[in-house]
């Protein structure tokens, strides 16, 4: 045994008998960013795992990443290659990844070819070779790539029972020798039910490539994880120069500690009159949806929200999809909000995301990374429509669900979110969003155009504040060189403002906020 937990006698009361402790299973890091979170901490030591999937899914890359993350000279990794990818080619390609550390080859990581034994169609010869090497080298990790090739080739001369016996013997031997084992193979989902290998295995990693129109996305599912919890479902994985990266469906926020934000603290949105309308400001940790048609000032309002936070020393992240950062910053300048300095100081991160072939999880991970990097307290997503459009068509079906997960995770961690959404004004109804996502927002502000006295003016109303009471007034506002400015309550009374075609009740009490053109 490598590590034994010794009872701490000092802590035991003298008159009580110590209860036998249950085994503590150490978990090995995978070396794959995001995967340990999915696995609930890592791979259980001494477990027998299968890495399965169709060709090109990244099975070998995953196995390599695991061995490079764990192998040491004291507890090396043995990588048995069989009739699949030749070792030379494997080394040729795998050394391109940044995790490939050639200093580990030879002593910490040893590649051994089993082709000769497999070609002899003799499972006993394969078993003998593996046991010989494992006994001699005492590895901490053993990989057989591809195990399916071993079995397929060897079974030509063996019965089904002998094959099962071989798998059983191998599993028992490797576990007894305290090796964490990975059997890599090309399998199809239909085999899970009938193949005894999947019954014996403690862990089953299933890699796949899903095609939707012109987009392809790699997915990982932990179908089996004996003795510990893992995050269920299909997780997006990406293979880059750094190897594999996994994006948990929970976005890594399952075990994150909830933020200790002051209970119900109100944050200024940067527009004093709007703060009053909202009952004192936006509740910290809320998700606010700002809906309105094009040109009503949603982005301006979002900029003011971020700037108000920066003035209070609260870092912020703006994920923008429809406008490039320089244009965004220039417009903030025009409103007298100097965001460029905050960007330079690392208080503000502006993400311009046009992912095209990225999945929604990867895009959200970018946002989460930025939030963690600067410790952001405020997040702007401008806009949800742009966000969705930036995704490849195949990923748009997951958009609402993923957004729900991300907003839930972030607000739970104390980040206050303002999302904008473009809605088309109709002159019969007041819609909030065609996304039906209002269920995931705590608060909704609606901006819209109304026709008054031959002018297309703008009004704003707080539709919903989950955190408490709010003004029900429909207030007129203008966009000036200070941004969105809500006009002092008007004395002229109108009805049917929400339709966009109001009717004045009584006398006009004041002039238009922005003068009409001279006739």
């Amino acid at each position, binding site marked *: 045994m490598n590590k034994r937990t010794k009872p701490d006698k000092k802590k035991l009361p003298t008159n009580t008998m110590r209860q036998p402790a249950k085994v503590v299973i150490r978990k090995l890091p995978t070396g794959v960013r995001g995967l340990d979170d999915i696995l609930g901490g890592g791979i259980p030591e001494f477990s027998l795992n299968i890495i399965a999937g169709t060709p090109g899914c990244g099975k070998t890359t995953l196995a390599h990443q695991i061995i490079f993350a764990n192998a040491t000279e004291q507890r090396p990794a043995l990588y048995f290659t069989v009739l699949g990818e*030749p*070792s030379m080619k494997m080394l*040729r390609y795998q050394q391109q990844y940044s995790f490939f550390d*050639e200093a580990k080859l*030879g002593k910490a990581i040893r590649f051994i*070819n*089993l082709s000769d034994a497999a070609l002899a169609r003799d499972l006993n010869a394969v078993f003998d070779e593996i046991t010989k090497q494992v006994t001699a080298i005492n590895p901490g990790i053993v990989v057989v790539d591809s195990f399916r090739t071993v079995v397929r080739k060897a079974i030509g001369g063996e019965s089904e029972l002998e094959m099962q016996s071989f798998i059983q013997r191998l599993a028992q031997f490797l576990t007894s020798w305290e090796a964490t084992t990975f059997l890599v193979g090309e399998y199809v989902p239909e085999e899970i039910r009938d193949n005894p290998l999947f019954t014996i295995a403690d862990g089953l990693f299933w890699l796949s490539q899903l095609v939707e129109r012109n987009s392809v996305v790699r997915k990982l599912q932990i179908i089996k994880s004996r003795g510990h919890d893992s995050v269920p479902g299909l997780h997006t994985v990406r293979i880059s120069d750094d190897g594999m990266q996994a994006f948990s469906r929970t976005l890594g926020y399952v075990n994150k500690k909830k933020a200790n934000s002051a209970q119900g603290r109100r944050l200024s949105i940067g527009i004093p009159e709007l703060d009053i309308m909202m009952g004192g400001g936006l509740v910290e940790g809320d998700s606010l949806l700002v809906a309105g048609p094009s040109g009503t000032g949603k982005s301006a309002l979002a900029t003011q929200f971020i700037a108000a936070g920066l003035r209070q020393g609260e870092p912020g992240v703006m994920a923008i999809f429809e406008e490039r950062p320089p244009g965004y910053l220039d417009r903030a300048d025009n409103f007298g909000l100097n965001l460029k300095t905050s960007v330079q100081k690392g208080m503000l991160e502006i993400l311009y995301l046009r992912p095209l072939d990225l999945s929604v999880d990867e895009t959200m991970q970018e946002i989460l990374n930025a939030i963690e990097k600067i410790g952001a307290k405020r997040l702007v997503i401008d806009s949800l429509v742009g966000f969705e459009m930036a995704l490849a068509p195949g990923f748009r079906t997951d958009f609402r669900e993923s957004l729900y997960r991300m907003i839930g995770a972030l607000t739970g961690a104390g980040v206050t979110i303002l999302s904008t959404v473009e809605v088309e004004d109709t002159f019969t109804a007041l819609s909030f969003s065609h996304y039906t996502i209002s269920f995931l927002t705590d608060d909704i502000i609606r901006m819209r155009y109304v026709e008054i006295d031959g002018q297309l003016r703008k009004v704003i109303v707080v539709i919903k504040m989950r955190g408490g009471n709010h003004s029900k007034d429909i207030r007129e506002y203008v966009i000036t060189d200070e941004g969105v400015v809500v006009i002092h309550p008007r004395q002229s009374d109108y009805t049917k403002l929400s339709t966009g075609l109001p009717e004045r009740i009584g006398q006009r009490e004041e002039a238009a906020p922005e003068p009409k053109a001279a006739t």
Partner: protein
Amino acid sequence: MRNFAKCLIALEASGAKPSTGSTVAAFPIPEKLRPQLTTLMGNAGFRALFSRALALAKMEVPWLRAIQVNDEGVLQGWEELHSQPGPDMFLEGRVVLAAQLLGLLVAFIGEKLTVRLVMEVWPKLSLKDLNLHEGE
């Protein structure tokens, strides 16, 4: 690769008994690399790689044309040689064959891994002596 090969041959000669005959032991570089490479790529893999190295070497050293790689990955066919090559020609054959084998390894897995693999067989090898880019 010639420098690399010469360096290994010199290193091998300094620690081995003098050998003048046209025997397997006269080609110690591939022979010493064989277990290492067979472990890595299997017997068939080594045989394929070594055969390729020999084929390339034959273009430069005509007397090697009588030599083949057998099923075990060992050189054979010495009896086919009509006349024994002289010491200089023999040395040239050793250098060229070793250089071609090393060159193939470098082409496939790169210098770093090749040197690493070679140094497992010849731990006393000094990187300074190799001058990998000279005499290619």
